[in-house]
């Protein structure tokens, strides 16, 4: 079971990161597969290749995150699930981990994998919080491929100033770092196969667009039929909402989030007094003299 996230590409900000009203300008930030989630997916696929099992990928996000799930299918995931619901909006890490735990509990699993952290928040909190909610041990910062023997998993984790090799009994949650592996690329065959994959909501939207004069009931009927066909071909992506998850809404979204935003500021660089120094012997000697005078260098 791999949990992934579609994130704005914070490393490639094109234009202004912030709107004038202080909200994040998502248009300036192309959406990508969170990099370390790809390492988590690769760890799962590697486990499947060497020890067997199936790989299910879950993401929570906007309907557009289906792109990330299709990418996971192209790379070798067996099943993908989209958790999407307007009531998930404004969830902090605690509410997110609660919602994800409701989804994970619906499926039989031995290993839950997450990327170490997402590049939009860099918090690295959802993994450990999810492990706590599932009541299973966590092995964070896994930096090498893992070994499994019977029900025992062995993993090497980064502990900042070195590494640690640990054992645990399944089930367990792992968070995986970018050093753990090189994620495999999409397979052309799988791309051909899953290119048309869609969620039921996506199917309905497409039918609506193609039949602008059809009534709501007609659209629904066509959608049900189409979904049935796609499901037979393995192209229907499961979509779950909070009702289906039987989630307690007090722990979701804004009400489930103890952390709130007080203020967001664009990074404004402290404009200090900057002195221009000529790149000449005299200019540099003058600067060194000043630094000595100010006792900055001694």
């Amino acid at each position: 079971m791999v949990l992934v996230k579609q994130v704005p590409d914070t490393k490639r900000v094109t234009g202004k990161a912030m709107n004038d009203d202080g909200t994040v300008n998502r248009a300036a930030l192309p959406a990508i597969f969170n990099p370390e989630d790809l390492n988590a997916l690769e760890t799962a696929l590697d486990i499947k290749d060497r020890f067997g099992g199936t790989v299910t990928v879950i993401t929570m996000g906007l309907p557009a995150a289906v792109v990330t799930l299709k990418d996971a299918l192209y790379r070798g995931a067996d099943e993908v699930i989209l958790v999407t619901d307007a009531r998930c909006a404004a969830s902090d890490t605690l509410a997110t981990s609660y919602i994800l735990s409701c989804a994970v509990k619906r499926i039989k699993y031995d290993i839950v994998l997450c990327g170490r952290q997402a590049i939009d928040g860099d918090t690295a909190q959802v993994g450990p919080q999810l492990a706590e909610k599932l009541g299973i041990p966590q092995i964070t910062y896994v930096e090498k491929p893992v070994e499994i023997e019977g029900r025992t998993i062995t993993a090497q984790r980064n502990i900042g100033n070195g590494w640690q090799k640990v054992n645990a009994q399944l089930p367990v949650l792992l968070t995986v770092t970018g050093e753990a592996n090189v994620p495999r690329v999409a397979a052309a065959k799988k791309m051909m196969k899953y290119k048309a994959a869609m969620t039921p909501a996506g199917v309905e939207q497409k039918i609506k667009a193609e039949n602008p004069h059809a009534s709501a009931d007609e659209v629904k009927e066509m959608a049900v039929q189409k979904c049935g066909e796609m499901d037979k071909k393995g192209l229907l992506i499961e979509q779950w909402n909070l009702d289906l998850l039987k989630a307690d809404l007090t722990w979701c979204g804004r009400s489930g989030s103890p952390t709130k935003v007080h203020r967001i500021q664009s990074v404004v660089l402290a404009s200090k007094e900057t002195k221009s120094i000529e790149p000449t012997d005299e200019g540099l000697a003058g600067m060194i003299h000043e630094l000595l005078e100010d006792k900055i260098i001694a």
Partner: protein
Amino acid sequence: MIDVNRQGEVWVFAEQHGGLLEDTPIELMSKGRHLADILGVGLGAMLLGDNVKGLAKKLIQYGADKVYLAEHPLLEHYQTNSYTKIIYDLIHKYKPQIVIYGATAVGRDLGPRIASVTKAGLTADCTDLQIGDHKTTDGQMHKNLLFQIRPAFGGNIIATIINYDRWPQMATVREGVMVMATPDTARKGQVITEKVQLSPQELPIEILEEHTRAKKVDLKAARIIVAGGAGLGSKDNFRLIWDLANCLGGAPAATRAAIDLGFIDHDHQVGQTGTTVRPSLYIAVGISGAIQHQAGMSQSQKIVAINNDPQAPIFDVAHYKIVGDLNEVVPKMIKAIKEKGFKEAIGEGK
């Protein structure tokens, strides 16, 4: 989760390894002391381990009023579940209003687990903590909250996070961003020894091997840092950084880009994913000044920047701006320093 309580103490998790305190909890003690003084409450330190009582004195010297001591052979090595259980019990027993952890490998593994089990908020990787008031959109006023300040979106924005309804207010704080106070050997404090009950079931992880290494350089302790970026062009040319650092008695450092290019070892990295430094003098050579790099050095007392691009963002934070070819400027600078009487340091440490 505990209720909002204004008398609750400020707590710091006193991370120790092998009976030694790291720098980070000491830095946090200084910040915690400051916050506790503003709120008019006590500062507590949570000290967990086996046979670590001796560290309590040091924590008191650095500002603790109380040290909550939990000793047990099974607490010798950090483990998520056992430490979470002890801290969960402590929080529910004493109801601190603020709990802060270092954003170390341990703090970032432990903090979220505690946040989840206590159903409280946690803000990761803060670069500053303040006390302030917050007015909600419906006009409610919440006074004296912990402002948890951190960069977000890859450093492009600074967010101030608060939690006013579910306490304790918790944060992990980046290593090296808080200034360490000088210890007061005359300070008095109280050590509160907790009864610890743990069974092996609370240690589901078996640690097979552990390898740690001391950092080759301690950039945090350096008074002068000379840092090079991708602009140096090659590992050979990075020699200029070593030469300039040597003649100033400073430490060589680099941006992530320069490290990715293999110019110098990872231990020398300054920036959001490296070390945060605040030396007296920071000389940035061939560094454009990405926000991620600035996050680790903009608090330096004086910043000298050398770059051939007059528009480089590094100049926005620099006190001395030198536009020119670093291959000419750096040797000239070394010459100027030598002429000012630094000859004795030349050639050392190569």
